[in-house]
């Protein structure tokens, strides 16, 4: 344990041990709604990571000046600023992606992972630690979304990143593209994750 640098531990905390999707089950609304295809899931995860890292950095810098009484409102304003940046950025890069993600880009504002990180970590730690922690959480969230989106796209459409994998005769699993499919896949991943976590704890 001691051989690894502390920053790496901090980073892996969010990616693996406290993965926001698979362990803490936070931010389920975008996870279930946007994970219909791998590309949607990946871009949603990256957008959230960007907002998470930049708002945590800013909050950490300003942590001594933000009055305790209005801290939540302040965090929301900071987060909303970065969400607006991301909103315009995605619109500029790809309009089809923007339309596919829909209202969920704006809804990053109320993503509980971001507010939770701001409140629990960034408001108490120096900028570098806050950035590393937020980056870990963001990567963990992106991985979770990507895992869900890949399974749902492969089974639901027979493709991955829009590239057909099985040819024309593929039988799409209709349920995977519907909301119940999201719940099924999420349940399956949670099952797998807790199984490995338990085996690691037992070993």
């Amino acid at each position, binding site marked *: 344990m001691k051989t690894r640098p502390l920053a790496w531990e901090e980073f892996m905390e969010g990616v693996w041990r406290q993965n926001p999707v698979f362990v803490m089950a936070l931010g389920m609304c975008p996870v279930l709604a946007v994970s219909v295809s791998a590309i949607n899931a990946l871009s949603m995860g990256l957008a959230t990571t960007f907002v998470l890292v930049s708002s945590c950095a800013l909050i950490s810098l300003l942590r001594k000046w933000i009055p305790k009484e209005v801290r939540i409102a302040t965090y929301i304003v900071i987060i909303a600023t970065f969400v607006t940046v991301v909103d315009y950025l995605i619109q500029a890069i790809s309009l089809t992606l923007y339309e596919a993600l829909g209202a969920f880009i704006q809804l990053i504002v109320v993503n509980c992972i971001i507010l939770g990180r701001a409140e629990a970590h960034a408001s108490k730690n120096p900028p570098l630690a806050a950035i590393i922690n937020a980056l870990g959480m963001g990567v963990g969230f992106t991985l979770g979304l990507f895992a869900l989106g890949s399974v749902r796209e492969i089974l639901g459409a*027979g493709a991955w990143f829009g590239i057909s994998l*099985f040819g024309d*005769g*593929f*039988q799409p*699993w*209709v*349920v*995977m593209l*519907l909301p*119940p*499919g999201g719940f*099924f896949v999420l*349940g*399956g991943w949670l*099952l797998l994750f807790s*199984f490995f976590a*338990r085996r690691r704890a037992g070993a």
Partner: protein
Amino acid sequence: MTIEIRPAPHLHAPRDVPLIMRHVVWSLLPVCAFFVYQYGLSALASLLVVTASCVATERLFARTGTQASDIGDFSAVITGLLLALSLPPAFPLWMGAVAGFVAIAFGKAMTGGLGRNVFNPALVGRAFAQAAFPQAIATYSPSFLPGRFAEFVPSTLTWPLMQPPELAAWLKVNRFDALASATPLALWKFEGVITDAEALLTSLSGHMAVGPSPLLILICGAYLAARRFLDWRIPTAILGAAGLTAWLLYALSPERFPNPFFMLFSGGLILGAVYMATDMVTSPVTPRGMWLYGALIGLLTVVIRYYGGLPEGVMYAILIGNAASPLIEKITQPVPFGKGPFARLGKTRMGASYPLHPTYISREDAGAEAPKKRIFIHKPKQEDRRSAEKPHE
């Protein structure tokens, strides 16, 4: 001779879970045999593959050590057989295997194994197949095709993850194109054709797209009920409620609704009522609760069939009934002897809830004093807090 002092129960009935499950499997075997006789090789392959998938999944979850599970209790075999019987006989084998996996993994293992499942596993698997492969599950091959023991229906042997070939085209090539490949319920729902109820009851005549004979299922179910391996109240309540609802609607406007016997003998109503709704884990244990549960399922089945988008409604009705059964148990608790509304006139009854067995004597009944609730042991007394606050003022 030694005399042991033991808590009750003192008498053990020589029946346990494996025995019950074994009897259910035996009673299902004639139904399966008839299914194979109707549909030949495809049905046999479907039964075997779905059951194997269920048992393998059960083994997988037992091996990972998350739950105690025993292949000897046959419960996965029952799930597999029921699932295969409820699917079309020429359902692609790979889809059947997926349905079997989902049935055990999501219907049973995820909630903690046998005895802890909320929903009937076979129906969870079927609901998943219905949602994932709606087209394949609606394609039903006709029964008693010539040469059914010599060759598979082509859709059975579809490659995994691939679409099954068109059944209608295959039927045309083999000059069966006059035959219906829709279930009697679908024929009624979408084309307004009502199949004769007597033909449905035995399902022996003609080339119909129906499951195993309802009459045979009733006979096998009667054996189980006579041996007390299932409770007769649930099928009776389901069939009674469904028949009554269908009859009422038929009496109101005979030209709009089919006759009640068609409703009772078509689709999977009899199979569901006898074998699926009576699953001991997911149905209420109180006698009045069983009547209520059955009536709910029967009513919902007819309502979904008449007013829903799909022709068949048994599966969803039973799943809703499963979800409601804890609630039903709660509101149909039997009143212990001497605790009825007239037993103690003049005395106010405390709002206590009683366990399910009437013979159980609760602590209050035995006259024992309940330990006083002391949640906050270290809670400071009112005076302490006041004195502690004083210095601040």
